[in-house]
């Protein structure tokens, strides 16, 4: 049993290394926030793609940022919410590191914020299995992947006034 384990572990690692995409990602529990909620290091090796980020921003099943925010030139979105501030000029107001922190876990920047934590997998009260109303098991898949966060951050950085 233990011999197998010793033998299998390196093998499994090799398989993972081979199967994994080229980009390395920082797992949610390993993300380092500074005291004000910023994240200095990108969460993924692949640079954020602003065009992809713009899609995630409106997509109901992933970012759904438009549920709470508005951006003036997003006339493609059928409805835009106003729970949070307009994101016009967000790229002027915040650095990339700050935006990464806000998108990954806004409560580190704005304590008690209503904005959901997009890159968090546990510590919930009655976590559910997506929108089924049934119990989910932690760790839950984060609301956005590391790459989606980098993409959204890249998109937000383009919002200049």
């Amino acid at each position, binding site marked *: 049993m233990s011999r197998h384990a010793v033998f299998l572990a390196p093998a499994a690692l090799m398989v993972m290394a081979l199967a994994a995409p080229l980009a390395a990602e920082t797992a949610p529990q390993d993300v380092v926030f500074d005291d004000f909620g910023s994240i200095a290091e990108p969460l993924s090796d692949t640079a954020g793609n602003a065009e992809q980020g713009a899609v995630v921003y409106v997509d109901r099943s992933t970012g759904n940022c438009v549920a709470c925010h508005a951006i003036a030139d997003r006339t493609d979105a059928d409805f835009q919410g106003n*729970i949070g*501030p307009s994101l016009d000029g967000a790229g002027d107001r915040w650095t990339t590191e700050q935006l990464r922190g806000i998108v990954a876990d806004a409560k580190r920047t*704005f304590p008690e914020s*209503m904005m959901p934590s997009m890159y968090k997998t546990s510590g919930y009260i009655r976590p*559910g299995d997506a*929108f089924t109303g049934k119990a989910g098991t932690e760790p839950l898949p984060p609301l956005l992947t590391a790459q989606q966060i980098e993409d959204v951050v890249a998109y937000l950085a383009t919002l200049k006034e």
Partner: protein
Amino acid sequence: MTTPFRMAAAAAMACALSLPALAETAPENTDPIVINAGELELPTAVPPPAHLDGAVPEIYSGWLFRDAATQVMQTDDFQNPGMIFVDQGITEWNTVEGAAEKSCASCHEDISVAMKGLRATTPKVNKDGVLWSVEDYVNDCRVNRMEAEALDWNGDRMKNLTAAISMQSRGMPVDVAIDGPAQPFWEQGKEMYYTRYGQLELSCSNCHEDHYGDWIRADHLSQGQTNGFPVYRLKDAGLVSQHNRFRGCVRDTRAETFAIGSDEFRALELYVASRGNGLPVEGVSVRH
């Protein structure tokens, strides 16, 4: 409530950011619901009950946050699509069923007398110290007095009956007891109201206290009052019970929801009702 924290965070982040204040937005007008060309006027905005302790400046009917086409349906009982279910509920009231060969009317007689005021004061603690919703009273009589089977809480027959019972209190101010034996249930419901459930970590208060009047995508947020229940919901083309509404709102936070008819939802029902103490029972309201 969270403003000092927000201010501190904003200051720490430096920059003169214009963070939104907790952005509750009062409705544009607070006209009463005028039903059947003036037969009945239901106020839509009244002073909040003392226990809310200034959390909101006024309490508002959900009707104010709906579009004009939906609003108008509630102003005429012939146009209100919920009224057909009230009629079916009254038929139910008069139908003999069960081994005791009785109908509700056999004992209670005229629904308009027997059930007047009940909806305005429920849920309430029964004589055994248990918190009961209208549905519990109905099923108690069915099982123990009619010797018939209990009705499904969320089934059509139960909703028709609760709609008919609600109608008998239309216009009467909600006035649920929150003290005495009701207090522990009320405290439990209050705790739930402010708990941030699910992966989205949202509490009832996040949406219905801090942000009523705002838009969450295409949805215009109300205060989440229950004085209009059961409501006729256009989206469902049918009546919706309070617990079903709660279940949907909790599910939408990506949480494990509570069951319809659970003790938790009874407690929440009491607390939410108490936030509407003073608003009139709307009988069967129309929402989308």
